[in-house]
């Protein structure tokens, strides 16, 4: 379990990294290495050159923009997990980070690495879709920005070109009074999810506009297909509702269960994943609705 031979570069600046990638065939960017190192050791990935971006200071940090924020690629899961800013504006991220592997892995693993790797059961790609994140990519001819949904192409495949580096993830502000719920079912604490789901319900309105109602609803799941999935039909059913009852929740959960195409693997069958998606959705929609609204 030793990697095939490779060269190694650790540039201090992004431009330098991009220049190396532009002139090298079969190079691979390494961030925290929490997924890539095992793949190298299993010889599943065989780059000629490893470009380590961990020394590029500009790729670290969390910046607030009003109630939105921007998280640079090399920011560790642990830094996100413990950030007061994240907790204030995106408490669902703080909650989800607790499910990302174990502390030692969270300490090295990064948001950019996780999103570029695009594991079909990972938390970050799902959060990116749920939060309508903008993914910033830098390449030899400049930068481009993609919506999260457009970034993920399939299991471990993304829009990221071999000569590009994911630099940061922008998270647009959530509407005021957004309630959230997140949970994950895994074999053990810290394992990849069998199924994980996140729910956001934004409640607003005034007596003048007909009273409070759900203005925005978002449901995303991971572990149930090649890539994270937003459940648009279920979201539409919730939007505009003034209240939620068990019957409505059941209908929402049915739409989720019937709207996914999970596959079977060693850990869980497709049927089990459907059932889990159904029960998780029911519980999380209810829990989000009953949550006291966040400012």
């Amino acid at each position, binding site marked *: *379990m030793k990697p095939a031979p490779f060269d190694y570069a650790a540039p201090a600046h992004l431009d330098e990294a991009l220049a190396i990638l532009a002139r090298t065939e079969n190079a691979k960017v390494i961030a925290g290495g929490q997924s890539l190192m095992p793949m190298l050791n299993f010889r599943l990935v065989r780059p000629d050159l490893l470009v380590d971006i961990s020394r590029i200071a500009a790729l670290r940090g969390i910046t607030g923009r009003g109630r939105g924020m921007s998280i640079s690629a090399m920011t560790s899961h642990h830094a996100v997990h413990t950030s007061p800013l994240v907790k204030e504006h995106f408490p669902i991220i703080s909650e989800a980070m607790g499910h990302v592997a174990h502390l030692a892995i969270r300490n090295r693993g990064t948001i950019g690495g996780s999103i570029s790797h695009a594991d079909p059961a990972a938390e970050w790609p799902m959060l990116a879709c749920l939060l309508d994140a903008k993914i910033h990519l830098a390449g030899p001819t400049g930068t481009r920005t993609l919506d999260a949904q457009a970034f993920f192409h399939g299991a471990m495949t993304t829009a990221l070109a071999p000569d590009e580096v994911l630099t940061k993830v922008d998270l647009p502000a959530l509407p005021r009074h957004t309630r959230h719920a997140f949970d994950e*079912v895994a074999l*053990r604490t810290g394992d990849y999810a069998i199924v994980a789901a996140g729910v956001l319900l934004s409640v607003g309105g005034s007596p003048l506009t007909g009273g409070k109602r759900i203005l925005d609803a978002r449901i995303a799941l991971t572990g149930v297909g090649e890539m994270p999935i937003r459940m648009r039909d279920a979201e539409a059913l919730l939007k505009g509702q003034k209240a939620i009852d068990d019957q409505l929740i059941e209908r929402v959960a049915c739409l989720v269960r019937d709207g996914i195409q999970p596959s079977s693997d*060693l850990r869980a*069958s497709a049927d*089990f994943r459907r*059932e*889990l998606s159904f029960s998780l959705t029911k*519980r999380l929609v209810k829990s989000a609705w009953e949550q006291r609204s966040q400012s």
Partner: protein
Amino acid sequence: MPEGRYVGAPIKRREDARLLTGESRFVDDIRIAGTKSVAFRRSDHAHARIVSINTDAAKQSPGVVGVFTAADIEGDARPIIASSRMANYQPTPMQILAKDKVRFVGEAVVAVVAENRYLAEDAAELVEIDYEPLAPVTDAEAAARPDSPLLHDGFASNVLVEREFKRGDVVEALWRPPVKVKARFRVHRKTPLALESRVCLAEFQAAKSHMTLYTSSQVPGIIKDALVKALDIPGSHFRVVAPDVGGGFGGKTSLYPEEALVCILARKIRGAVKWCSDRSEDLLATSQAFDEIVDAEMSVDEAGRILGVTAEVIGDVGAYSIYPWTAGIEPVQVISFLPGPYRIEHYHGRVRGVATCKPPMGPYRGVGRPVATFVMERLIDMAARKLGLDALQMRLTNIVQPHEFPYKTASGMRWDKAGFVECLKDAAEAIEYAALRETQAKAHAEGRMLGIGIATFAELTGIGSRLSASPGMPINTGTETAHLSMDATGGVTARFGVTCYGQGLETALAQVVADEMGMLIEDVRIIQGDTDAVGHGVGAFASRGAVMGAGAAMLACEALKEKLVKAASALLNAPEDEISVGQGALTTRDGESALTYSELAERYYSHMGAVPLEIKNALGELSVSRMYDPEWGTTSCATHIAVVEVEREACKIKVLQYVVSDDCGQMINPLIVDGQLHGGIAQGIGAALFEELAYDDDGQHLSASLVDYVVPSASDVPRMAMRHPELEKPENLGGIRGIGENGTIGAVAAIANAVSDALAPLGIEVTEVPTTPERLFRMLDASKKEMSNI
């Protein structure tokens, strides 16, 4: 001088300081200049004929010293065969490298020796092997049928071993009894998963014609005895060292092809050759555990008395019959131990060990007993439920009572007196059984699925030479050696054949020696894991280390003290019978003269003329060696009670409470005893809920990394309460009963019974383990569908 005795005291383990600070020395820490590294090209076919092997490119790869196939080592070793007198047994010679045919995915075919492991793996990739695929033999039940493709050419069938035990008339007992329960039980394949995977390093010193094999093994004595014969090296010139060893659990009790191979290669290249298993190789090629199908039936009268039991076992023993234990080691002991601690007059157990395209089955912590206990304890709960009896009461009705010892079991084993009833009652009391049943009733009323599971069992430990795991095995597991020597400072060095691989034996044996000699424990050194330490040793397995090691130590201490009295007699000019030994000193009867051990040793060795030469010539060094053979074995027993809750949505099982009451005789060190139970129960929880080596129908291994082979993590293991009732001690030296396997033996059954108890309102009985979320989902789903059909 120490206050009181060390034996029985919860003193901290002496080996922990080095293990916890990184100062321990495992095989991979040993540095010999010029050591070459081995990487294997292993089979990716389950069953195939090797048509051709091309190693040209690999030989040209940078840093390669040599590339070896079976043809290249032909004649370098005599056949290694796990022989046995068992009737209908078909032995399979060990394949050091696969010759002609591969029989499981992961079997070593080509060995590449290079300057380091990286270069060796680079070259191993370049080896080209042309295979002609053969029909995979993966399902043991199908493989046992006469029409199955054969794994070994020329064999009568794939059934390598077949045995049965009978008592009474089981047909009569099962004929129209009031209550019958039966099920097909399935226990999936598991791996021992020691923290340190297997590593071996052979150094051949050509000028001295001397071979040293450093290997991460529980049994350096067995390895040496086998390899001196296979490699034709005089025993005096072959040393096997098992330095610090990071766990074994039975996975390091067998001789492996890799151990033989590094010796062969070291001799070929006249140097040092090392193989360090990575985790995938560990999961692919270390001996495995369980994998049995048991069709069992029990008949019971209306009072809950067991009338008869039958069990038909199919054990998937993998491709080869493992050395020295044979393919019978695991499955045969399932039918030996199945009657358990119960009074069962009519019994018929039959077992077939069937060869398939998987790595060999070997001994794993508990050997047969975890599966036997799972089946028996499940049957009892199923019968109790059918009769409306309480699970505890059903056991109290059937368990062998104190006045019935010694009790001969239905399979022919003998239980000496042990606390069967006492442990059962004690565990129930500890967990407040009656109150717990009330709590459970309330939980059920609230819709919570809470379950209580009892498992009680008896185990045979510290087995002497009158019993054998496999009749006619090529080794003697009934004896162990202790060698004691006193140096010129009065310090004692004790050398043992039993090994320490993390289970705490080093500390436990120091406690025994210090007490027997009346010394400070700090002045006692323990040397283990080196065939140079004693003339003959075996190793530690089968819960024999404490029983055999302590017994041998006690005999040796007695003999050493006799020798010290003789020396003191000369030094103090007093008759031997007037000198007493105690508190680290020798004192004359009148109390006038005394010598501490250090005074005696210094004068005996270092003062010229202090002892008359004819006495010294006769007495020699202040050292002795003794062997201990406990003849039979000693019974240990325990009751485990687990409380679980089934989380319906996630289909997960949470272990809430765990209590054990264990009769292990005289405890040498209660901390170590409890630690052994904790670790064993964690492994049992693994077997009950998580761990499974998965192979597909083509024999491909689907769980060759720890992403796919799931073991319990710390948060999956509950706090446990351990109790050891004060009971009569067994009659062996020291009154010690083995404890090493009591955790795994009880835990699988206790958890499975608790899960079944939680699911009882749905009519679900667990018959297959591990009960993974997926299996639980399917059971709940089926029960839901059944309910809706009514």
